[in-house]
């Protein structure tokens, strides 16, 4: 029947045809090469260069990985060392506190500003300005204002993470489809209900994108703030290792920072993908 065919969902009609097995294996292999090939080559080149170098400041990657494992991952189950708990724990604590503060303030402020076209137009240049300040440049300001304690670090992370969340929330709220808002009004949803059921969900793709940018900015500032007068944290560990010429240790700290960054980003993307299933589906 004609209507049946017309009304078949796009999901069914676009279902990919399964290719034969050998083709699938070849496909997977090609995928692996594309994704990881350059990285593997880079590490191998690094290894060769480091081996042929006589400088003690240029250790081979296998040594770095070895040291990373013994320093950070050789403890009792769950296999992390005290060094890990102490430094990764304190670093993550600062980052997540600062980021969470930025998210709460950014979303609340963004909804408030974004609810009025005039307010948004007025505030936008200021937000762009704040966002454009190179973040390490604000460190001295925070040192002067808040001293060398953890308050300074958390505030610095929050300050720098705030702008992308705020800016994206304002834009997200500003660009909610008029028809969706009018629909809600016609069906009797009040101001709060509209905010909860229309504005937030509609703005969520932009808000989450802002939160992701904020997280990586926050990671940067976490490290930078720990290079100054900290007594723990992965950034401090890198700094201290360098002071004592423990070059391989220093590199293992850098590896840890990379691992933290990648894991945070992956977890956030997984969360984002879950929350925005509708958005991904809608645009497919």
């Amino acid at each position, binding site marked *: 029947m*004609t*209507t049946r065919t*017309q*009304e*078949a*969902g*796009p*999901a069914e009609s676009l279902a990919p045809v399964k290719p034969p097995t050998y083709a699938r294996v070849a496909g997977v292999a090609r995928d692996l090469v594309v994704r990881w090939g350059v990285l593997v080559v880079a590490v191998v080149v690094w290894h060769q260069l480091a081996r042929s170098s006589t400088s003690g400041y240029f250790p081979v990657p296998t040594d770095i990985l070895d040291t990373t494992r013994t320093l950070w991952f050789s403890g009792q189950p769950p296999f992390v060392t005290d060094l890990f708990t102490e430094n990764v724990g304190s670093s993550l604590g600062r980052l997540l506190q600062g980021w969470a503060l930025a998210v709460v303030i950014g979303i609340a402020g963004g909804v408030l500003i974004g609810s009025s076209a005039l307010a948004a137009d007025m505030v936008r240049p200021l937000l762009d300005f704040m966002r454009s300040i190179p973040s390490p440049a604000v460190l001295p300001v925070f040192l002067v204002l808040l001293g060398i304690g953890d308050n300074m670090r958390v505030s610095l992370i929050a300050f720098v993470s705030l702008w992308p969340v705020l800016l994206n929330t304002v834009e997200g709220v500003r660009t909610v*489809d008029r*028809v*969706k808002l*009018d*629909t809600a*009004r*016609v*069906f*009797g*949803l*009040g101001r709060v*209900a509209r905010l909860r*059921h*229309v504005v937030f*969900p*509609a703005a*969520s793709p932009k808000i989450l994108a802002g939160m992701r940018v904020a997280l990586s900015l926050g990671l940067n500032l976490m490290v930078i703030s720990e290079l100054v007068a900290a007594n723990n944290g992965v950034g401090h560990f890198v700094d201290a290792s360098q002071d004592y010429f423990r070059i391989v240790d220093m590199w293992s700290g850098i590896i840890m920072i990379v691992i933290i960054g990648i894991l945070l980003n992956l977890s956030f993307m997984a969360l984002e993908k879950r929350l925005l299933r*509708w*958005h991904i*589906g*809608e645009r497919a």
Partner: protein
Amino acid sequence: MRVREPKTVLEVEDLHYEYLPGKAAIDSISFKIGEGELVSIVGPSGCGKTTLMKSVAGLLRPTSGTVRMHGVAVSQVPDDLAMVFQEYERSLYPWLTVAENVKLPLRYVKVDKGQRARRVERALAEVGLSRDHAKYPWQLSGGMQQRVAIARALAYRPSLLLMDEPFASVDAQTRAELEDLVAAVQRNHGVTIMLITHDIDEAVYLGDRVIVLTGSPSRTMREIDVDLPSERDQIETKASREFVALRSEVAHLIRRATRGTTETVEPPPEGAAAPEPTAKPRQERILP
């Protein structure tokens, strides 16, 4: 008010609307809709039909004139009014499933949970989407999305249902099905409906009355009673003499409206061909 008319649900009196001061989108529209009636409103493109609908819904405040529902002047969105928007894709919420879309407005109506669920169930069954509760709107075809929008309006049990060119962007077959769906709903539930359309056949086929608007800025040009039997059929009714006569009457009026006269015209003498209007430049449209 004529004596045989039922209770008036909607009364629009000398409605005038300007988006920009001095530039009227609606010049003057007046009409009434009685309980259980389906009134079609036709008019040339851009004449202010959506503006009229939004004023009735309380989304726009009339520059002058009044809109009364159940005798009370509308100053904000009335709480027993529902609407099917012209842009149906944009009026559904893509983050909610079909059932959740229909249920959302009911969360803010005083009905208990069980009854809410039953209403959703029944409305979706009525539009033929019983098996699609858990799907998302973007997984549905245009016609099915429009059914969701209709189900949402039905579940709300409004005393007035506004429909703004609800079938303008679906294919002919789906359009006919949806028209019959609306006709059935009106017959079975006695819903009062104000249907905006630019399709003359649709206006006559579905309407108890047709109101023709002039071109922009629009005025009420004429009201035509549709004296067709209430049981209608896409093929039989549309082939009947009465239907064809009504249809050409409306078509003549629309043609005249489109050619630019904004004067209210008298009905043509019985049997006579509609007089050609004197050529007049088309009214400038106010650009958004």
